């Protein structure tokens, strides 16, 4: 921009400011859902230090701000991947087949709490929790049922599993073997992000050090044997759900990502062996532009650091590919049908932010697991965005917006400040140990709640626009008898397998856990012999110990 035009611009802005000074705003503060202040107007002055080629460039080109593929959704739409799973493998298999028949393009498995925490269904700690928030998987027998009639070389599957991720990946590989499909043909993702468990989601089993060892074992094994598999999905979703701001979600997630990169390098792996298979998972909350800026900033920060700090050479190591889920915490139990509208706007921000796959929440998830009807509406929401709104026809359509670019820059700068603070603690693990992330998130969550309670923030149907209707939504009920059935099923597996082989495989695993061997081949051999998830995790628990958190609020 020439200096003459810049001068005119400044004069114009002063004139406009003089005009607005005579007007009155309808509220005291305008802020994002993360409590960040928003200016009334953004102008070229807000992005005057930006360089198009340095900061934006072209889609598929460094620093990838505008997207990871050159043609983005003109080539292929994002994967519509609805998270589902409940009761036993039989019921969940039926739901997967239904979703696939309705045009869903990838699977995403939700496990129940005992599976997530590494307990078999008949363990005393599993009492009352079997099949409640996801599907119960105890052994290879359940996994064979879960994917029965679904050829695993023709679909990609995401599994939301962390502490026992190694076991579930091995179960998937062994299930594919039974279908006659080799591991190198498998595509999908395990979440496998233990750092965010300590920070936010709190489904840990082992202490950090052995947990990180399991993760680098998976990096090495998957890089060699399951090359199309995303060996970790570094997740901001749960950090946000726990109450963080958008910047905290961005910064803490990327900090976790860098910690995995450093762990891989420290374990002696070439960064370009494993970094191309690192993937990300973000939340799509209600603040439309803030979310779009977050995704764009994330791509840029990741590419810059991977290249400049970690010396990645393979272009694929620089690409931040991510899944998005709309914000469960933004849904309201009051007038629950309104959640369809919330989810649609959130999904739109994810698409405008260039997501690679997307889960849209069902309106009833604040009340129970989604019914078939509400799950279908959620999927249709994505299909409407893809087919009817036209937003997927051009790439990164909001680039060049003074507001969106200024916000993208600001989020990057604020994330960098968080990286410095984490560095001062001595890294992510040390900061977890000090309760830094946990306290930051708890503070933000409490502030948000206070803003609602003082009516500084309006949530439709909660603190304004309320009505006395009781929701008439048919909820999915989990029959309590399935717990008993599943317990019988795992007991039958223990009776019918070759227990000598199984015991030997578990003994081999125990020995390996005490050495520095990669544990994946041992776990794979154990699951092939129908060792249960609980038995495998118990062996590791005995060797590694269990993590305990200092409770703070």
């Amino acid at each position, binding site marked *: 921009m020439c200096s003459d035009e810049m001068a005119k611009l400044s004069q114009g802005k002063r004139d406009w400011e003089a005009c607005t000074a005579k007007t009155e705003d309808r509220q005291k503060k305008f802020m994002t859902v993360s409590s960040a202040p928003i200016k009334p107007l953004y102008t070229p002055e807000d992005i005057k230090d930006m360089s198009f080629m340095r900061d934006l460039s072209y889609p598929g080109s460094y620093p990838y701000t505008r997207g990871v593929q050159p043609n983005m959704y003109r080539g292929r739409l994002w994967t519509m991947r609805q998270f589902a799973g409940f009761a036993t493998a039989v019921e969940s298999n039926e739901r997967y087949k239904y979703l696939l028949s309705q045009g869903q393009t990838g699977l995403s498995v939700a496990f129940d*709490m*005992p599976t*997530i*925490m590494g*307990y078999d269904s008949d363990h005393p*700690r*599993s*009492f*009352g*929790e079997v099949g*409640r*928030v996801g599907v119960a998987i105890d052994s290879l027998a359940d996994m064979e049922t879960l994917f029965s009639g679904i050829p695993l070389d023709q679909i990609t599957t995401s599994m939301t599993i962390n502490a026992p991720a190694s076991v579930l990946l091995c179960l998937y590989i062994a299930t594919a073997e039974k279908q006659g499909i080799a591991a190198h043909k498998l595509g999908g993702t395990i979440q496998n992000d233990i750092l965010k*468990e300590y920070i936010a*989601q*709190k*489904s840990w089993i082992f202490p950090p050090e052995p947990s990180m060892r399991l993760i680098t074992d998976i990096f090495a094994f998957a890089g060699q044997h399951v090359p199309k598999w995303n060996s970790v999905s570094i997740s901001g979703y749960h950090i946000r*759900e*726990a*109450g963080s701001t958008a910047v905290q979600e961005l910064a803490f997630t990327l900090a976790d990502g860098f910690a995995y990169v450093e762990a891989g390098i420290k374990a002696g792996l070439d960064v370009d062996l494993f970094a191309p298979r690192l993937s990300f998972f973000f939340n799509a909350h209600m603040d439309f532009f803030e979310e779009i800026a977050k995704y764009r900033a994330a791509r840029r920060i990741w590419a810059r650091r991977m290249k400049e700090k970690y010396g990645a050479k393979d272009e694929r190591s620089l690409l931040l590919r991510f899944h998005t889920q709309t914000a469960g*915490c933004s849904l*309201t*139990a*009051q007038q629950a049908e309104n959640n369809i509208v919330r989810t649609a706007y959130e999904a739109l921000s994810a698409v405008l932010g260039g997501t690679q796959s997307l889960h849209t929440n069902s309106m009833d998830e*604040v*009340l*129970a*697991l989604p019914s078939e009807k509400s799950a279908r509406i959620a999927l249709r929401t994505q299909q409407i965005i893809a087919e009817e709104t036209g937003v997927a026809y051009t790439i990164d359509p909001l680039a060049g917006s003074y507001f969106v670019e200024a916000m993208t820059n600001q989020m990057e700068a604020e994330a960098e400040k968080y990286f410095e603070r984490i560095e001062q603690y001595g890294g992510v693990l040390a900061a977890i140990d000090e309760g830094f992330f946990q306290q930051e998130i*708890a503070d933000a*969550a*409490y502030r948000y*709640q206070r803003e609602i*309670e003082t009516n500084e923030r309006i*949530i439709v*149907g*909660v*603190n304004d626009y309320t009505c006395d209707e*009781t929701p008439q939504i048919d*909820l999915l009920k*989990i029959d*309590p008898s399935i717990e008993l059935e599943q317990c019988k099923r795992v007991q039958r597996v223990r009776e019918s397998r070759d227990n000598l082989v199984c015991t030997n495989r578990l003994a081999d695993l125990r020995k390996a856990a005490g050495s520095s061997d990669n544990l994946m081949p041992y776990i794979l051999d154990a699951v092939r012999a129908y060792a249960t998830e609980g038995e495998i995790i118990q062996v590791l628990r005995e060797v590694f110990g269990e993590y305990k*958190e*200092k*409770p*703070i*609020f």
Partner: protein
Amino acid sequence: MNAERKIRVLVAKPGLDGHDRGAKVVARALRDGGMEVIYTGLHQTPEQVVEAAIQEDVDLIGLSILSGAHMTIFPRIQELLKENNAADIIVMGGGIVPADDIKKLIDGGYAQAIFTPGTHTGDIVAWIRETVKTKLA
């Protein structure tokens, strides 16, 4: 009992579920509301919750459950309270609990109140003050 004594509350996360946002927000709001709050931390068994409640001599236990295990956990807590002669401790809950389950829990005497998402924390504080006062009267 001394009239000046602060109301003592145990906020507990029973079961395997790790979603502690609600529990922590409520714990802080109760503390800001002038109560003594003890937070158990995560992954507690019903036995651990009841033991902590008795040891800490609380007036009330607040159970936060988002994992769908409420229909087994609330009755188990009540059973343990009775076994330990501590059935005078008030039990309330919060989380993802469908309306007809709330009715069953309250009608069955397993909980005196269940607060679901969207509740004003001020309403919880007021309810606890009122309920504890009635109990002591």
